[in-house]
């Protein structure tokens, strides 16, 4: 989820891609940014179409175990503007969830547009029965972004959506010539770290600015494969691991709760 163009879509994409190895998980990426669907371009899937079969819509597969769905695949041209009001966007999101044949997947990652509006309400409502594991909130270090992130965190509390943690993106830039580190988006109020401490939310990690990230996105290549030595790559991989640990922990707790409940049933 969350504020503005702070690297959400890229993060969603990289999390999906990062999940692919070394363990082979089945991952699906659902892009519900109806007005600004950049996932197809970032994954090199521009021009791909969605196919319909008896079992429903088929997601577009980047790898055998990574399927993607976006409104971008339904447009006749990538430049077509989708100028829809809320009810129509909600209708499409419902279709994505109901009609797409995702198959058996381990992780479904949903990339949301900026803000806290129709799309966010709808996805939380429609997936409430499926128990969303949690939300990852992306921000930059500056106060203007953190202001919106605090609202996002409150939104999650209001709709009882667990928060896995916050990722601080564009956290520092290392000059390729002199290796001096600059804070382009300075953490004038302590950055995401201070905010997470104040609000009792986990800081999953900090990702530095790397021009190669933007280039890979524009070319539709995987940054993690193109620049495996970049500090940003290791940051992403650490963040993915922490998200996986959170999800595993959550499932273990849920299984334990079910077992306890079953035990009580037997005694009664």
């Amino acid at each position, binding site marked *: 989820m969350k*504020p*503005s*163009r*702070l690297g959400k*879509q890229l993060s969603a994409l990289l999390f999906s891609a990062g999940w692919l190895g070394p363990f082979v998980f089945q991952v699906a990426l659902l892009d519900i940014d*109806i*007005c*600004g669907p*950049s996932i197809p*371009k*970032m994954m090199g899937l521009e021009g791909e179409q969605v196919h319909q079969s008896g079992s429903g819509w088929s997601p577009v597969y980047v790898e055998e175990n990574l399927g993607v769905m976006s409104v971008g695949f339904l447009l006749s041209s*990538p*430049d*077509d*503007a*989708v*100028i829809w*009001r*809320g*009810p129509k*966007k909600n209708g499409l999101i419902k279709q994505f969830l109901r009609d797409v044949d995702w198959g058996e997947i381990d992780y479904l990652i949903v990339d949301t*547009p*900026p*803000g*806290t*509006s*129709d799309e*966010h*309400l709808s996805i939380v409502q429609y997936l409430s029965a499926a128990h969303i594991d949690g939300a990852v909130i992306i921000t*930059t270090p*500056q*106060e*203007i*972004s953190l*202001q919106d992130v*605090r*609202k*996002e965190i*409150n*939104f999650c509390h*209001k*709709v009882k959506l667990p928060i896995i943690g916050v990722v601080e993106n564009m956290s520092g*830039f290392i*000059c*390729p*010539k*002199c290796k*001096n580190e*600059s*804070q*382009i*988006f*300075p953490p*004038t109020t302590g950055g995401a770290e201070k905010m997470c401490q104040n609000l009792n939310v986990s800081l999953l990690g900090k990702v530095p*600015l790397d*021009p190669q990230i*933007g*280039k890979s*996105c*524009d070319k539709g290549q995987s940054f993690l494969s193109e620049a495996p030595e970049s500090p940003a790559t290791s940051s992403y991989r650490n963040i993915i691991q922490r998200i996986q640990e959170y999800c595993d922990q959550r499932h273990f707790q849920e299984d334990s709760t079910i077992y306890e409940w079953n035990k009580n049933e037997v005694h009664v």
Partner: protein
Amino acid sequence: MGSPAWCWALRAARFPVGGGRAGRALRSGPSGGFAACAAPFADSASSSSRDEALRDKRARILSRGLPKQKPIAGVKQVVVLASGKGGVGKSTTAENLMRPLKNYGITCMSMGFLIEETAPVVWRGLMVMSAVEKLLRQVDWGQLDYLVIDMPPGTGDVQLSVSQNIPIAGAVIISTPQDVALLDARKGAEMFRKVHVPVLGLVQNMSVFQCPKCKHETHIFGADGVRDLAKTLGLDILGDIPLHVNIRETCDSGQPVVISQPQSDAAKAYLKIAMEIVRRLPSPPV
């Protein structure tokens, strides 16, 4: 012999009397009449003007359901800042543009003044539309030469509501040079075209970063992407704003760079953009 007469009756019902090649062929005699019957719909000039008339009628009927544009009392011209993509610097640009455009001091209105800082506004489109309507019409703007509207990212409810409810003098689209941002900037431009709002030009933001230590320049988000898009769309570049730590820091502290450091390169860049906007706006209504 009844057939040519039948064709004539059919033709007269479809086209004005005496018009078109088929009409002339009919009047020339029975054989001409048969030729006319063989190609009764061949008159492409009339059929395309007829199609246009039908399209206009359809648009007029559809527009009956749409809100009527009504200017805001006291406001001469409205300029909207949009982007398509989020996080490209619309709000920062809006803040820094308002200073050079001001004539009588700044009035500013935002949902941020009506709610607590950390309270999320979790509203569906209809409520957002109603709030936007109130922010536009139920605020005592006084007499303004320019009202600058900072739009949220996207091409949804807010953009449609604003475009349909008030006459907009021009739209400025802000983008970073990255392809994924430009994709959405292009959609924004397309949207404004559809709702008949003139696009004054594009602003390239976060174009280049200069290392404060060695002065080496890095194009972190790509180079010149916005210029290329402007060429493709036939739009002008209103200005180019570099990535500068000052802009971010002064924004966070509530002292936009055009006020706190008016001699800086960043402030001069914003001033230039404001002048370009004013130059391109149509003459204000009397």
